[in-house]
Every structure is written in C-alpha cells, then in structure tokens.
C-alpha cells in the first residue's frame, strides 16, 4: 500500500502500538554502529567546513558503512550547539544532501554538550515504543565556523528599518546607528546568568573538591595514551571516516608526557582567588567535528543483516542549581548517575565500562570525588553513606574528550558508538551482558547519563 508513492507499511505498527501500552512489552532499541569524522582542533583542517558539511560527511560515511543508500530511515535527529540562524533545519538539510532517501524525516535538537546523547535517547525511545524501526542520531559543532551576530544596536536598527514605511522614517532610524554598533558579537563560553566562563566555573568546583594539578594531569595523560593505543589497535577503523586529510583526531598527542603536561601554565581560575590548577592540557580545546549513530529495532537490524552491538537500556537527565554556587556548573551527572543506577537496581560495581565525558579533567575527578564522599552521599544523594568508587581501570579505556577533542554536540555520538562496540566485544563476561555507563555534563548546569548493555 502506498500514499504519494511512499510505502505506508510501517513495519509491525499494530503490534508495536499494543506493545506501547504494556511496559513489559516495550521492545529493545539497539546500536547498530556509528560513524564520525576525526575531530579537528579549531582553526585546523575543518576551518572552512560548515556544520552542514561535517554532519553530511559523517552521515555519508555511516550510509556507506551500513549500505543505507536510498534507505528511508524512520527518523534522523542531530544538533549543533553553535548554530547559524540559517541552519534552522540543519539535520533535514544534511539528510537531503546525503545518500539517504529524501523521504527520511529529520529534526534538530539542542541541549548544549548533551545534545548528541539526548538525540540517541529520544530516538531510542521512539524505537522502543514502536513508532519507528530505524533512526540515526548525531551531532556536529564547529568552533572555527562559528556564527557571529551583529550587535544589538545594529540588529534593532535593521529590524526597525524593515518595518519602516517612508523615507523620512528610514532616515530617522538610520541616524540612530553609532560606530560601536558596527562591532560584531562573537559567541562566548560564558554562562549567561553568572558571566563566568565554563572553565572558571569548573575551576571553582575543582578547588571545592580539592582536586590536585597532578591528578588532573594524570587523567589527561591517560586519555591521550588510551586514545593513541586504541588507534594503534585499529579500534576506530569501523567507527571513523577520514575527512579533509585527517585520519586521526588532530588534538591527540601520542607522545605527551606527565612532564610536558606539568610544564603548562594554568589558564582558568587565576582571577578567582583559588589556587589555579587547570591548564590547556587538562581542559578540552575548542574542536570541530561530527558524529552519527545508527539505531534500530532488533527486527530491523536482522532484516537488514546488520550487527547489534548494544542495547540502549535507560537514560536520565538532571540539572543542578549552580547560579549561586549551590553545586558546580558541571556536577549534574553526580546526581543523575545515582538515580539511573538505583532505578535499574545497579551499583557502580556492576558497570564494566565508564565513559565520563572529559569536559575538563577536573570535571571527571570532581564527580568521582563527590561519589566517594560520605557527606555528599548522605546529605545530597539521600544515601546512607558514599555512593561508591569507580574502578579507574574501567574509566575511559579508549580515551575521551581531553585527547579526542570535544565538538560539543558531536561528543555524545562519539561515545555511544565507541561504548557499544566495546560492550559488544566484551560480550557476557560473567554470564551476564556487559554494562556501560555514559555521563555527559552540559552548560546551564545540566547533565545527561545513559546505560547501555552488550548485545
């Protein structure tokens, strides 16, 4: 059956609507695989590439890998944090520019650095409910090709001009222009309500949790070492498509050392009166890049003879009241993870792989410190004591954002695809499927975390 030439045989639609009415019958959403382009430091290989260029490149690599040419995917969702106003339909435009069927619908989503992970969770839920059978989640960001806005003064004059009807009115409006109105407004990383940059916020949190410079440098060192080892082992061969001459993330310093990291000068927290420990080495640099993840129902994956790497089990979004310093800006995952694990009857000891996004080394270490803190566990999490300890040998084992870089909205897709592959390889070590946890902090005091299980 078809309407306007589009098949209306939405696979197993009647069964799925029944399934949705019963929590037990909700079907699984699996990660089939992922594709990203290497991440590039700002001002590097992707300087002239737009968000749409990079998202389309990542999408086309995914299509090629899984044979999705002309396929009508259930839905594509992606987003960018730094977005031009002309990119209002960024994802749909990327789909139209890709080899997917032009009948594939798409929507944009924005939740700061959690954008990519939230697209995965939202689409996985649609698959679980039987609303769609396949989906592509993703994200892209360019700090090189960032939008620059005209000043408020010029913007108001231009808008008023467009409403003016007569020449005298237009002249009167133009006369309001002042030389300073011609200076553009560049985006900045300051939190709108505090005026502090993300780094300055994290510097406060890092000091509050007494995280040392050495511990931060060690985490950064491990990130580079682990990512380099993963590249050398060929781990990214089926997760990445070269782009603009890059075959690896350009921020990766395989030869970095603790001595080199220790020689860097602090960049955040110098004006805050606290001891400054955060350097360009233990903070993520501004980066350009894009990532995508293919999600599906088990039936769709089987019908298309595609792998099933991991199941998206559950996800939690949380937020903290950071504005007046009750909690650190990037500490929402410290609350989200305990909620996620509790409702799934799990503890930190049950997790085989932890993927804690390295916005700053201090972010990861402050989160771990909060979980190990008795008082935080009692007074803030409502537990009897500390939440628990993360086995560091299970943390970011193939590197994370400190080494790979962090094109804001693209980080979620990078992590989901890598973790799904790691879980699939791990299989069922003790007779139960391996579990992976993702934690991503975001601007505005937000955090999104997710639980994946090996297939």
């Amino acid at each position: 059956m078809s309407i306007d030439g589009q098949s209306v045989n939405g696979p197993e639609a009647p069964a799925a609507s029944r399934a949705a009415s019963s929590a037990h019958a909700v079907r699984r959403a699996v990660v089939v695989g992922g594709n990203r382009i290497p991440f590039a430091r700002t001002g590097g290989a992707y300087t002239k590439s737009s968000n749409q260029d990079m998202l389309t490149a990542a999408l086309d690599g995914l299509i090629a890998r899984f044979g999705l040419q002309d396929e009508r995917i259930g839905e594509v969702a992606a987003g960018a944090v730094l977005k031009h106003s002309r990119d209002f339909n960024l994802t749909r435009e990327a789909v139209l520019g890709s080899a997917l069927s032009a009948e594939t619908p798409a929507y944009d989503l924005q939740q700061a650095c959690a954008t990519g992970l939230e697209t995965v969770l939202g689409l996985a839920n649609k698959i679980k409910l039987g609303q769609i059978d396949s989906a592509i989640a993703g994200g892209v960001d360019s700090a090189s090709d960032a939008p620059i806005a005209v000043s408020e003064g010029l913007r108001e004059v231009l808008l008023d001009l467009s409403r003016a009807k007569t020449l005298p009115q237009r002249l009167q409006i133009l006369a309001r222009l002042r030389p300073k109105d011609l200076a553009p407004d560049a985006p900045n990383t300051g939190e709108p309500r505090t005026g502090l940059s993300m780094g300055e916020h994290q510097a406060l949190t890092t000091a509050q949790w007494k995280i040392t410079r050495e511990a931060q440098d060690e985490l950064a060192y491990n990130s580079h070492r682990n990512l380099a080892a993963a590249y050398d082992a060929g781990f990214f061969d089926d997760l990445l498509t070269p782009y603009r001459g890059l075959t690896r993330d350009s921020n990766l310093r395989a030869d970095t050392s603790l001595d080199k990291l220790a020689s860097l000068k602090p960049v955040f927290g110098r004006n805050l009166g606290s001891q400054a420990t955060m350097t360009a080495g233990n903070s993520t640099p501004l980066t350009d890049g894009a990532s995508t993840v293919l999600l599906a129902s088990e039936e769709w994956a089987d019908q298309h003879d595609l792998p099933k790497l991991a199941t998206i089990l559950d996800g939690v979004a949380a937020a903290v009241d950071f504005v007046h310093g009750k909690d650190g800006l990037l500490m929402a995952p410290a609350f989200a993870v305990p909620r996620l694990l509790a409702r799934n009857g799990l503890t930190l000891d049950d997790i085989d792989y932890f993927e804690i996004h390295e916005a700053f080394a201090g972010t990861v270490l402050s989160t771990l410190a909060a979980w190990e803190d008795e008082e935080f566990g009692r007074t803030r999490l409502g537990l009897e004591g500390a939440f628990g300890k993360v086995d560091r040998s299970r943390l970011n084992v193939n590197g994370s954002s400190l080494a790979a870089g962090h094109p804001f909205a693209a980080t979620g897709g990078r992590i989901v695809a890598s973790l799904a592959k790691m879980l699939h390889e791990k299989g069922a070590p003790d007779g139960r499927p391996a579990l992976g946890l993702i934690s991503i902090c975001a601007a505005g005091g937000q955090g999104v975390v997710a639980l994946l299980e090996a297939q």
Partner: protein
Amino acid sequence: MSSAQPIILGEMPSLSKLYVNAAAAAARRRILGSHNSTALPLVSHEVRGVLADVGNLTAYQHLLGESASDVLPAGFIHALAFPVAMSVMNRDDFPLPLLGMIHLRNVVEHRSALRFADPMDITAWTENLRAHRAGTQLDIVAEVRGAGEGTVHWRGVSTYLAKGVYLPGIDKAAAAAQPAAFKAPDPTGLWQLGVDAGRAYAAVSGDFNPIHLSVLSAKALGLRRSIAHGMYLASRALADVGSAKGEAFRWEVSFEAPVFLPARVALDISTVQTDGAAWLRSDYVAWSPRSGRKHFSGSVVAL
C-alpha cells in the same frame, strides 16, 4: 506617609532641568556664600497618575538581566520615583548642595507587585538630617501607591551624604570604628562592565548624572573616570538573586568603593532557605577581582 505638607506637582519633573538647576544653585552658593537654611524642608512632593513607558521598561529589563515581564522591577520603580525625590532636594530651602552628594545606602520595601499599565501616585520627602563622620547625611523617602489608592506598594529610603558639609546645630559624629577587613569569597558571578555601562543605565533610568556618563563629564566633577551608577549595580544584583525572591521583599544595599568604568566586578550571592527549601533571603557582596576591594553589599529578604 509623611506628616509633611504635600505639594502636588502637575507633571513629572525633568531630571535634566533639575541637574542644570542644581549646577546653577551650586554656582550661586559659591558666589553668594553659604546657604542660610539648616533644616530640611517640611514638605513632600507628589506626582499623580504616573504611567511607566513600556518600551523603556523592556529596555530596562533587558539591560539589568530581568525577563521582560509586565511587573515593574523594584529598581525600575526607584528610577521612576527618582525625579520626584530630586525635586525635593532641588528646592531653594533644601540645606545641602545637591551636586556631589554620595549615595551611601538604599533600602526598598517592595510590598506588592505593580504592573506597567497601573497608574501610580509617587510621593517623596526628606527626613532624618544627621551627622556623619565625613559630613552631613539625610534620608530621602519615596512612596508609591496605585493611583488614588491608600496602600503603599513600594517604599524606598535612600541615604545620601554631603561630604565635608557641616551644618550648625548638628554635632559632628564620632569616627566610625574601623570596618573588619574584607576577604573576598569565591565568586558566583562576574560582571564585565564596559566604559558605556553608565550611559546605558542613564538611557533606561533617565538619570543623566554627569559622573556616570563619560570620562570627561566625570572629570569635570572631580572624578578620575566615570563611575557605575549605584542603583545599576544594586538592581543587577537584585536581578541576579532571581525569581526565588517572590513578590514581597525587602531589598537593601550599602555602597562602599565606587566602580570606576570599565571594570570587572566579582559577585557572591548566598541564599538561605527553610528546611522545606522555601526561599528566605539572599545576601550579596561585590568586589573588584583585581584589588580585592569591596564595592557594595546587601540583601534581599522575604517580607
């Protein structure tokens, strides 16, 4: 309400005329010698049926970081009432030189919400002339009622110092005890104030006091650079306290070192809640991250 004799003004006084008049009065005093009045005028000035301009309100809200709601921010009402207050201090029988007076402290009781379409009656008078270790201080009180209503929705008390002016009959105050040394806490916010911060506030408040407008106009009045308007700083701190404060609150600010523009101002806001997480009060303090000097501090407390 004051016991003072009310004088109804036919229209809102023009601040620019008041400043010109104050400058002329200052010149006259310089030539003709000191003023003969040593007591505050026993009158209040009142303007009836005042309406806020909605465009101006929106510009004010955007500048201060308030969302553009229909409720008038407490600092905006202060700006609305300010010309009435100025007109009292501009009277010939006002005993102190108006230009150069220093704003020491401001206390506002915001008892209930006023909306932009509500016409208001605004009354102002001076009271409590008293000694200060550095001169003479007084309070200027403004009250705002809904037009024709008896209930006061907003009441502000601004304390000003006429530095170096000692009036006969008012004993010199004892030197105040040395204030405790200020140690800056970790900030919760950082403001970047451009050199035009004074002009921007003048545009939305109507208060074109030359000390806030430009380096040149400030130098003409003996300052090395222009300074941020105290009510701009206090109103921004009030906006930063956020929506937790609800509709009825007491808002207080004490000014210390002036903020010379341009400047970075660090701010700490700490909030006290009940056990049930209901908001009780927020205390704020602002300082220079460069010198560590305290600029101002204050509180917003539930009424």
